[in-house]
């Protein structure tokens, strides 16, 4: 498609996005301008809003970095949500078990390790199926999400059930002792070691992609499996390693959410966008076209919209689902905006056949 046609398409999509969100707001009798303004002011407009946004971007950023590793090779780990849940389970379990006998720093290290292991292992069966049986990993990783969520639900209503409910009518695990929580850097916010870890992971991803053999090979695979094979890349091994890293990081995101924010295991609701870090991580990674700096920005942006949406839900009684739809719309626009040429180049090499 010609360049001009794509520019027209982009303008069209931006218009559609503005119209669509206006329509969404006016459904609830809110003027679109007020709606959009309060969405952005609520997310980015004040110190408090920014603190909430930055705090909220931590799990998204970690998740998006984790997903980007296999995405680079065009291996689609859609199971981040499941790995996140398993990671949070493992981390909480470690914390509750070990806190009686080990010093806090050691407990946190163990929790970090356990969540990485849990998340990585949760992704192994679908990835092995993909490698050895050629089964589309999109479906299988996704199915594993549901399994993980039900497992969590069983654990916090059974073996890991807490002595008292944290919220009314909601099951939960026992809370972690307060001294296990990651220290915060800014008083009164969630901004703390979690953010540092998230940024370190993004930097690590940058170096991995740019300077390591694995990063280079994953990009080769992403550009075309056959070419990569001729170049002597061990595709199976690379995909497996990338997936272990990906699942592990997604698990760590779960650990950070528990140790940095929640402090307790809570149930996951399928339709709740606010806790669907594994799903939202997908657009966060993709609209940044897997660029580490882009991912930091898009995690910030996505988190900001969500923070703003909490505000308009409280003020104007507009459901948070508006955000989900907006995320979807953003996903349509963003690729057109700045990585369509990349996608096109890739897709010419290896699409079709299905």
């Amino acid at each position, binding site marked *: *498609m010609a360049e001009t046609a794509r520019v027209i*398409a982009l303008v069209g999509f931006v218009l559609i996005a503005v119209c669509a969100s206006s329509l*969404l707001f006016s*459904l*609830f009798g809110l003027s679109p301008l007020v709606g959009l303004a309060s969405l952005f002011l609520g997310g980015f407009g004040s110190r408090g809003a920014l603190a909430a946004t930055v705090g909220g971007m931590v799990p998204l950023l970690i998740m998006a970095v984790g997903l980007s590793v296999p995405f680079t090779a065009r291996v*689609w780990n*859609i199971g981040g949500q499941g790995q996140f849940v398993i990671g949070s389970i493992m981390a909480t379990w470690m914390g509750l078990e070990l806190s009686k006998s080990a010093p806090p720093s050691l407990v946190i290290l163990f929790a970090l390790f356990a969540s990485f292991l849990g998340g990585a292992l949760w992704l192994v*069966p*679908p990835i092995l*199926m993909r490698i050895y*049986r*050629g*089964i*589309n990993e*999109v*479906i*299988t990783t*996704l*199915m*594993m*999400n*549901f*399994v993980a969520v*039900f*497992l969590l*639900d*069983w654990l916090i209503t*059974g073996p890991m059930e807490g002595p008292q409910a944290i919220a009314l009518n909601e099951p939960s695990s026992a809370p972690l002792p307060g001294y296990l929580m990651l220290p915060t850097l800014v008083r009164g916010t969630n901004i703390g070691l979690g953010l540092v870890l998230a940024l370190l992971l993004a930097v690590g991803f940058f170096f991995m992609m740019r300077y390591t053999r694995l990063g280079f090979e994953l990009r080769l695979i992403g550009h075309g*499996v*056959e070419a990569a094979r001729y170049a002597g890349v061990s*595709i199976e091994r690379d995909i497996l390693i990338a997936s272990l890293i990906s699942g592990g990081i997604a698990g760590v995101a779960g650990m950070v959410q528990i140790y940095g924010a929640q402090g307790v295991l809570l149930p996951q609701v*399928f*339709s709740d*966008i606010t806790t669907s870090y594994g799903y939202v991580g997908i*657009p966060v990674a*993709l609209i940044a076209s897997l660029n580490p700096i882009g991912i930091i920005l898009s995690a910030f942006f996505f988190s900001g919209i969500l923070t703003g949406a909490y505000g308009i839900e409280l003020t104007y*009684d*507009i*459901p948070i*689902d508006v955000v*989900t*739809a*907006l*995320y*979807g*719309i953003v*996903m*349509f626009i963003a*690729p*057109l905006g700045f990585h*369509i040429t990349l*996608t*096109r180049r*890739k*897709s*010419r090499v290896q*699409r*079709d*056949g*299905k």
Partner: protein
Amino acid sequence: MDQSAGTLNLGVEGMMLIGTIVGFFTDYYTGSLLLAFLFAGLAGVVLSLLHAFAATSLRADQVVSGTAIWFIGWGLSGVIYRALFGNYLVPPTIGTLPHLQLPILTSIPIIGPILFGEDPVAYFILLMIIVTHYFLFHTQIGLNLRTVGEDPRTAEEMGVNPIRYRYAATMFGGFMAGIGGAYLTIAVTGTFYYDLTAGLGFIAVALIYFGKWKPLQTFLGSLVFGAVYVLFLTIQTHFQAIPYQFFAMWPYLAIVIILCGVAAKSGGPAGLAKPYEKRE
């Protein structure tokens, strides 16, 4: 059918979700089942057009646009529900579809009530399966469509416009997904709740793999799937000591295991499942 023409449609879940709510409120306000299904189908078509435009014309990655559609359907279904019905604790309900009692036929012992006591949509779906099968495998257009799916370049040399075919197929898929979603609210639950489909759209895509892109086999797959589902429900009522979550998670696990088994048996669909890694 959708996939026969070469678009991996992750957006099916989103299209089903939008179908659930559109079908629900159309039925709620008009009381017309036909309109409800029609509008739900059309809502699915609108989303599928977006998908087709991005995936076919813009050549955006299909995982990207599929995920986008999924999110849009997910968000919109919740938004529309809240906009129309407010924030009730107890959702409004509509009557579910009556089960047809075809005279005479239902009186056949045992198989009578099973085969002929279903709701009308079930028969419509059966009809669609047969029509789709015939269409895909016994008409020129169907052959063209499959060629587009297998190898667009060959299709183009044959004088077939792949883009037009992909659009049409994706729209058909969207329509059916919308109807499928509406079926959940109108015929099964009679009410709407958030994320009603809970991955059914994805299960549908998985069943297509099971059926190896053939409607009849896919139908068989759904049937087996449905049968095992009922079996588990029965087991669940008898063994209440086992936590319900284990029953709730099995359909998703089953899909994973079934896919693994199917691929092992034939070795065939390996190449199909991986458009970019043909090495069979």
